[in-house]
Structures are given as structure tokens and as C-alpha cells.
């Protein structure tokens, strides 16, 4: 028996064309905003001498965490500087920070809406599943056709890949607030927003922060993939090393990513713990 093939691919390409033709100004606007954000952060990170920034980050690590994290910061960052990977690392960091900030700004409110409306949750959950399991390479393509090559489609792809944990854990954190506390807040005449800001968000904060931490880690894992569509940074070094079979360069760039990953993870985790106390 011959089953006709559903032309899903055609549909998607037609939708892509339609969006490109009709929502051009919107995409241009997003391009300007995200591009500006990445540039701004990158400029801020590279305008000071690397050694000064290393000192600042080390001090920050000591203040947030313990001397162990500070020690790791100073050694790890000096290593990146020494490997002459400082500038590409800061470019990647700018991409990661932009994607993370935008993920949190969009993800927390979406998570809150999910916790309030069953219908909304039922709509959002499968979309999140789709975003997390669809291979990231696949949505690089429409991102490129909407935003052309460069860092912006990289940020968009990173957000799509990294935003689900923030949404899911925000929703979970709010739903885990004990019902009797919510009832008490109601009994004293709280408005819905008072309930949210005075009770639900503070109690959900540790869970939300675990989601934010995951989001940062996931967007860092996207730097190499983003470099395939022209995002500059240390990811591009890895990508080039792979295509040219240069093991040494690949590992050097890889180590820079690992250092940034560990540092971001420890700093965010400890910052949230500190905030909790």
C-alpha cells in the first residue's frame, strides 16, 4: 500500500517565507535590540584590560562564594588570558549573558502564567518539549533566514534551547508553595499581585534560581553551535579546529569554555544561596 507523504516540510518552508516577507520589520527590530545588547556587553567586557577584569571577577567570586571559587577564578581566567583566548571568550560570554538575560526576562513571566492558568500550561508544555528535543541545528536555519548570519540568530537559537528550564522551574516553584499559605494570604485580603510578590515568588525563588542556573549552562553549551552560523567567539575556534582537524586548538578553546562554565555555575549557585540567607 502506498501512503501519501504529508508535505510538512513544504508547509514549514512556506511559513518561513511568509514570515520573512511579512514580519521583516519586526525581525529587523529584534535584530537591532539583540545585536545592540551583545555589542554593549562585549564592549563593557573588553574595554578594560583583561588583568583588571580578572581582578574584579576574582574579588566578586570571593565576595559571593568562598576563597576556593576565587582561587579557581584567578587561575582559570589567567589561563584563558595566557592561551590568547581572552577576546573570543568575552565575545562568547556576551552571547551567553544576552541569551540568559532575555531567557529570564521572558521565561519567568511565562512560568508565572503557566502556574496560574491550566489552559496556558497545557499549551506551553508541549511547545517546551518540542523546543528542548528538536535538534538545535534544525532551528538554526529559520533563525538565519529571519536574522541573517551572525551573533543574533545564535542568541535566538540559544534562547529557544535554554529557556525551558526557567519556565518549568518557575511554574513548579510557584505551584509548590503550600496551599494553606496561599489560603492565609487570601484570608487577609491579598490582591493576586500581592500574593505573587509577597508570598509565591519569594518562596519559589530557590527553585526559580535553579532554573536560571540551568538556562545559563544550556546557553553556554550553544556557543559552538552558534558559531556555525557566524557567531564570533571561542566557539568559532572549536568549530574551526574540528573542521581543520587541529586537536590542540580545539582543546585549548574547549578548556576556555569549561572554565567559563564552571565559574558561571558556581557563581550563580552561590549567589542564590547567599541571597536565600
Amino acid at each position: 500500500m502506498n501512503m501519501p507523504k504529508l508535505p510538512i516540510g513544504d508547509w514549514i518552508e512556506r511559513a518561513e517565507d511568509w514570515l520573512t516577507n511579512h514580519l521583516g520589520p519586526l525581525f529587523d527590530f529584534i535584530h537591532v535590540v539583540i545585536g545592540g545588547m551583545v555589542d554593549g556587553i562585549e564592549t563593557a567586557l573588553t574595554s578594560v584590560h583583561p588583568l583588571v577584569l580578572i581582578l574584579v571577577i576574582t574579588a566578586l567570586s570571593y565576595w559571593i562564594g568562598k576563597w576556593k571559587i576565587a582561587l579557581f577564578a584567578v587561575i582559570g581566567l589567567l589561563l584563558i588570558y595566557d592561551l590568547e583566548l581572552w577576546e573570543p571568550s568575552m565575545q562568547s560570554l556576551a552571547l551567553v549573558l544576552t541569551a540568559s538575560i532575555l531567557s529570564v526576562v521572558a521565561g519567568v513571566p511565562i512560568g508565572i502564567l503557566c502556574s496560574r492558568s491550566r489552559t496556558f500550561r497545557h499549551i506551553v508544555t508541549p511547545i517546551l518539549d518540542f523546543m528542548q528535543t528538536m535538534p538545535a541545528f534544525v532551528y538554526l536555519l529559520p533563525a538565519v533566514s529571519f536574522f541573517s548570519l551572525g551573533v543574533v540568530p545564535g542568541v535566538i537559537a540559544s534562547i529557544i534551547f535554554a529557556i525551558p528550564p526557567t519556565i518549568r522551574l518557575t511554574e513548579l516553584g510557584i505551584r509548590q508553595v503550600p496551599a494553606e499559605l496561599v489560603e492565609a494570604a487570601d484570608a487577609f485580603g491579598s490582591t493576586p499581585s500581592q500574593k505573587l510578590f509577597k508570598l509565591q515568588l519569594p518562596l519559589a525563588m530557590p527553585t526559580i534560581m535553579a532554573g536560571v542556573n540551568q538556562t545559563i549552562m544550556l546557553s553556554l553549551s550553544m556557543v559552538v553551535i552558534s558559531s556555525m552560523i557566524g557567531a564570533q567567539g571561542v566557539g568559532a575556534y572549536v568549530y574551526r579546529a574540528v573542521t581543520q582537524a587541529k586537536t590542540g586548538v580545539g582543546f585549548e578553546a574547549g578548556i576556555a569554555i569549561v572554565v567559563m562554565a564552571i565559574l558561571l555555575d558556581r557563581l550563580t549557585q552561590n549567589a542564590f544561596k547567599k541571597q536565600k540567607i
Partner: protein
Amino acid sequence: MPILEVKKLTKVFGPDSGRALSLLNQGWSKEKILKETKLTVGVNQAEFSIEKGEIFVIMGLSGSGKSTLVRLLNRLIEPTAGQILFNGKDVMQMNDAELRRFRRRNIGMVFQKFALFPHKTVLQNAEFGLEIQGIPKAERHEAAQKALHLVGLKGWEQSRPDQLSGGMQQRVGLARGLANDPDILLMDEAFSALDPLIRKDMQHELLELQARVKKTIVFITHDLDEALRIGDRIALMRDGAIVQIGTPEEILTQPANKYVERFVEDVDLSRVLTAAHVMRKPETIRPERGPRVALQLMRDSGVSSLYVTDAESRLLGVLTADDASRASKEGLSLDAVLQREVPWAGPDTLLNELFEMMAEARLPVAVLDENKRLRGIVIKGAVLSALAGNALPEAGVAR
């Protein structure tokens, strides 16, 4: 006018509540409705009115609908039908903003599991009701402090709830309920999670507190002893309906039906009745009257001892007939011969606590209020007959 009046208040859980309502009106039972329609009747046409300053206890076993009923009063659970009149205004007609205002200003609540906010200090918990009204910081601090002092938590303002014992946590809950000075305080099994000794202390303190702040309190409990001890009136619930409403004495002595009778038959009266219930009026005399007057009084009223009090009716001592005649012969004043060591107890002393004192004492036990004024005396016979379930002496109406 009663402060709170409830008319035919009904809650049906489930989608087609209108159908259950009409069945209820036809006199169907809760069980039958559940069987036929799968709808649960939480509260079935409850009717009562609560006067200002009263402690109104709603009592019933678990599943009787008492916790649902109390949540209907401030619409934490939306009633299906009926009326709730607060000072004549229908709470069920209020829109969201009016309802919030009603909850903020007029009706506070204390919860069984305390429901304190773990991320806030004791003080911040106590001032929560004021904070959400947007009252300035200094003002709400002061009101919350006052409420915390009232419940005996001075000095704990900066602690976290999880650093406190259960009894103290519930004091915070109570302070939170009192801080915004509501007219009515709903207390949902407020003491049920506490261990028995602490619970008794809290009941006692609630009564003291009530005497000072004069709130109207709706108190939910499954514990008959607790209901009898603190309730001015008690509503007994069963299967969502109110079976009987009355004073503790009425519930005990005139149970409305077999269910109430069974409910109250296991009550250990010695743990419910107090000295105030069984005391009778003593024969008293002022010391300056002299021994001859005293002897005449004893002959007239047929007693062998008199209670000597001062002008403010504070107890000075006891005068026996022997002492009086000795004073009369030797020309002594009453002051010189009266026995100043008199066994005494407060009006709230429970009968089981009185037993020990009475076993040792030769004289009746004097009942003194907090200012040492003589309120009555308790004789052995009265205690035993009260425990045997006989009618209480007429002085027993004093509560």
C-alpha cells in the same frame, strides 16, 4: 442586631450544584444526594446568628463540614446558596474589591496548621494583614508589636517561625489575626495541632485575651471539652447540617436529639465543669460587726461558719461558731479569732483539680476572682452531685 447572621447557607461541591440544591429543598439527605448525583453537600442550609463579643464554637467530627462552613463565612470557599449578613450587609453580594476590604478590615483568621510565612520574621508575619493594606511601616510595626505583646511574644519579633515551638507559632498566628483589629476572628481548629497541655494553656489565654480585646470569635473544633470550655454558645454539626445550637450547659443538659446525647455522654464532667459551675453563695460578714452578730447570723441561716470579707468583698478569713463564741466570751474582735488560712481556688479551676484540695481541707473551698474577691464557696456535696449529672446549683450560671 447580630454582628454576623447566616441564613440557609449551603455549599455543594461538584458541577451541577443547582440540582443538588433543589433536592436538598425536597428534603433529601446528604448521603442520598451523593449516591444519586455524585454531588457532595459540604454545608447543608446552616442558620445561626452571632452576637458581638461572643465566642461561638462550631463543633463536629471530621467530615461534618465545620471547616467548610467557616471558610464560607469569608468566602475562601464560594457558597452555593444562602445569605451571610455582616452587620446587615450581604457578604455574598460583595464584588472582589469589597470582599478584599471585608477580609482586610472586618474578619481575621487563624489556621490549624498555623500557615505562617516561613520567609518572614515573626514581626513581618504579624503585620502581614496591615502590609497588604498599604499601611505605613512605622504604624504597622507598632500595631504588630502590640498584637505580639498581647499574645506574650515580646522579644521574639526578629525570630523566624521555624525557630519557635508549636504553641508559640500559633501565638504568632493569633497575633497576625489580631493585628489589623478585625471585628470577627475565625479560628479554624486553631489549637488542634498543639499537644494537650499547651492546648489547655492556649484556651485559657484565649479567654483572657477575649476578656481584654472583646472580639467576636468563631471557633471551630472537633473537641467537645474545648468547645465546652471556651464557647459562649456551641453549634453542633453533623453531615453538613447544624444539629443543635446552645450554651454549653444546654448542650450538656438538654441534648436536642440522640446524636447530641451520644456525643456528650462520654464527656468527663470533672474536666469540663469548673468551680464557678458548682459554687454556691456563702454567708459573709464584715469583721467590724463583732462576734455576737456573727453568732446570730449563723443561727439564722443554719451554718457553722461565716466568710469574713472587707468592704470590697475581699476574703479575710473564715469564722467558725467555736471561734465566734470564744471571741464573744473573752471580748475579742473578730479579727483576732478568724482563721486566715482558707483553701481557695479561681473560678475557672476544673473540678478534677478541686478534688485534691477538697480531700485535704476541712473547710469548704473559697472561690476567689483575680482581685481576691469572694465569689462563692464549693462544698464537697455539690461537686459530687454535679459529677453524678444532677442539676447544677443556681450559682452555676455564672461563667
